[in-house]
């Protein structure tokens, strides 16, 4: 759409600007402030320059949780995106079952995150939970509170359970926007199912899929509450993702300097990756 040049439009944006700036600038400046100073309590701060940044970037602990985070995000994206597309493709397009499917599938999205964690914790407990009990009865030695691999798989399963529906909903919306005539044309050309998917459905879903991937990337990269309640980051550090580690440093040990520096680096990484996504997305649109 060709837009009119109108500087007065600023007035319409101003309330949003004020509200978000209040929430974003002041706390961000506080974090920046922490990240360049050392404190020994009593509200006394000493200038430290970039020392904390160097410390964090060199620290083994940060590298470990960063890599863990990358693995986790990559894993859940690789499972959730194909699964979500597959479910969306096989969902009915019309009829009474559409509402039933949509309501049931959206349900996990609306459960408070700590309840999701608690629910999966109980569900997976080996002695009293449905999943844990069943797995153990089937002869699997499964105990996510002690086995790192089991803890990792349980966390991934929880995230897939929690968020695949977002991909389904968005892909489904993309599919619904394809006019019936496209399919008829493809049928006349004798297109195979794969060809229809590749040349009719996928291009139409491209935009919503980018949004789905972007949202899933951001949210999984910031994941905190669910794994914290499920495993507390353990056993050991197996499921200590970036946010959990950050809160441990900031509020557990009260090391505000390193925590501040880590926050800024963390934020920058998310920002950079999203900026790349966003630029690609916008270029495709033009």
């Amino acid at each position, binding site marked *: *759409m060709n*837009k*009119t*040049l*109108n*500087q*007065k439009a600023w007035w319409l*944006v101003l*309330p*949003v*600007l004020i*509200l*978000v700036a209040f*929430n*974003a600038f*002041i*706390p*961000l400046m506080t974090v920046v402030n922490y990240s360049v100073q050392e404190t020994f309590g009593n509200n006394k701060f000493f200038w430290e320059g970039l020392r904390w940044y160097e410390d964090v970037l060199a620290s083994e602990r940060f590298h470990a949780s960063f890599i863990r985070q990358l693995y986790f995000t990559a894993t859940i994206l690789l499972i959730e995106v194909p699964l979500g597309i*597959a*479910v969306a493709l*096989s969902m*009915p397009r019309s009829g009474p079952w559409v509402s039933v499917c*949509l309501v049931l599938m*959206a*349900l*996990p*999205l*609306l*459960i*408070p*995150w*700590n309840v999701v964690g*608690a*629910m999966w914790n109980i*569900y997976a407990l080996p002695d*009293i939970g*449905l999943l844990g009990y069943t797995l153990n009865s089937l002869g699997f030695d499964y105990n996510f509170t002690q086995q790192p691999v089991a803890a990792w798989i349980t966390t991934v399963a929880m995230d897939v*359970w929690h968020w695949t*529906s977002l991909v389904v*909903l968005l892909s*489904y*919306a993309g599919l619904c*926007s394809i006019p019936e005539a496209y399919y008829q044309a493809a049928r006349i050309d004798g297109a195979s199912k794969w060809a229809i998917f590749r040349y009719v459905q996928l291009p139409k879903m491209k*935009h*919503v899929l980018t949004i789905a991937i972007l949202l899933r990337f*951001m949210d999984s*990269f*910031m994941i*905190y*509450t669910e794994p914290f*309640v499920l495993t507390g980051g353990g056993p050991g550090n197996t499921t200590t993702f970036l946010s*959990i580690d*950050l809160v441990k440093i900031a*509020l557990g040990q009260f090391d*505000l300097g390193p925590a501040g520096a880590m*926050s800024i680096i*963390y*934020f920058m990484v*998310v920002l950079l990756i999203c900026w790349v996504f*966003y630029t690609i997305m916008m270029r495709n649109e033009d």
Partner: protein
Amino acid sequence: MIANRRWILPTLYILFLMLPIYSLVSMSFKTTNEILGGFSLFPKNFTLENYVTIFTDPTWYIGYINSLIYVLLNTAISITVALPAAYAFSRYRFMGDKHLFFWLLTNRMAPAAVFALPFFQLYSAVGLFDTHLAVALAHCLFNIPLMVWILEGFMSGVPKELDETAFLDGYSFWRFFIRIFIPTIAAGIGVAMFFSFMYSWVELLLAKTLTSVDAKPIAAIMTRTASTSGYELGLLAAAGSLTLIPGTFVIYFVRHHIAKGFAMGRV
């Protein structure tokens, strides 16, 4: 018929989604002793005791009221400021508009864990700590950008001729906006409010950090109870089951809008 087998995948998927929820709800009808006694698929001694406790003890049920208050407050604030802003982004070019739009989105990307402590200090400093307003305002950080993003998509789908005709007919800007434009994009507003409700209702870290007594959300009350009075699993399961209800209502009411809305808008 090949098409007949299509129901298998969605059915299996829904089954996978429902199992943990079933196990939580079934647990909420058991006593804690029965839960700890070992696994059973159905409650042996069906009890409503857990629910009775929650509905009669103010320290429990006030949590639901608190959560609902700040979620609704947040949705109201977000939609009020996001609507005109989204309109501006979809209809006008102005200085710095693209940068501003991306900057807004970056706030959606800020990890809540990064902001928890500064938020606590900020809201204590302005005297809003432990009020519903504090949580509602804090949640604006990620809900307003998302809403502007979604609404802008919907608005760009409405032809500009609609605005021009209305202005030619002598409508003032605000009268046009409220009487004509908002009803036109009702589906989009439904979708935006759904997402805003969803993200505010499920968020815990900021809500917990910004409250202590008066505005404590139900989710935080659950964690407190878990640590002080031992591990009352039955009670926790009941409290958790109850948190499903508002979400179910919201999805039920917007289910048509979601399918239609997504298809219409850019999201």
